[in-house]
């Protein structure tokens, strides 16, 4: 069974806070590749990381990560 398809506005929030991918990666404790993968919707972050990102931008998780409702077979 797949997971719910997600879209995210990480790139938008990162631009709003004037952060580079490298800076964001350092702040949330992941690699730059992970930030790139999340931004391009190739990798779905864990709940812990999603909350970390939301806390960093001082918004709710659902403001950044949007559940599109349908199931996606390409889970991670």
């Amino acid at each position, binding site marked *: 069974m797949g997971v719910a398809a997600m879209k995210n506005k990480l790139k938008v929030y990162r631009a709003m806070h004037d952060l580079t991918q490298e800076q964001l990666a350092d702040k949330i*404790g*992941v*690699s730059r*590749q*992970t930030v790139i*993968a999340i931004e391009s919707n190739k*990798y779905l*972050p*864990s709940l812990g990381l999603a909350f970390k990102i939301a806390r960093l931008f001082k918004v709710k998780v659902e403001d950044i990560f949007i559940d599109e409702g349908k199931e996606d077979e390409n889970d*991670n």
Partner: protein
Amino acid sequence: MIVMDRKKYKQLRAAVALFVSAIVGLAVVRDSYLLATAGVLTGMVFMFLVRSKAKIRTDERELTIQEKAARMTYAIFAPTIGIAAFLMMLPTKGGISVFSKGEWLFMETLGMVFAYLTLFLIVIYAISYHFFNKRYGGGGNEE
């Protein structure tokens, strides 16, 4: 505490391994057990100090990749080696393997090794599955 990412840790580990292998190589040339032991112990102590003094930051995406790769490796390796073991020990004439004579004699032994290897792999998988299942809340009847 120093924070080190996984990539840097891997580079450091490779450098230490290179150093240890150079020392061991030198020890072999000089026929010195002491030098080899000292080299290996130095490497081990250094890596232990690095692990205890530095916090190694693991990337969750990398962990996911490792999990998937491990699962795929198991899914491919276990049946392949199991089938290979079965074929090598396949009895044909009066319960004797087709390979159990002449120059092919080693094949049956190899098949036996493969069979035990497969069993070992399955046992390790079962034990670790049981362990992680318990660790992540499985197996209980609590409501």
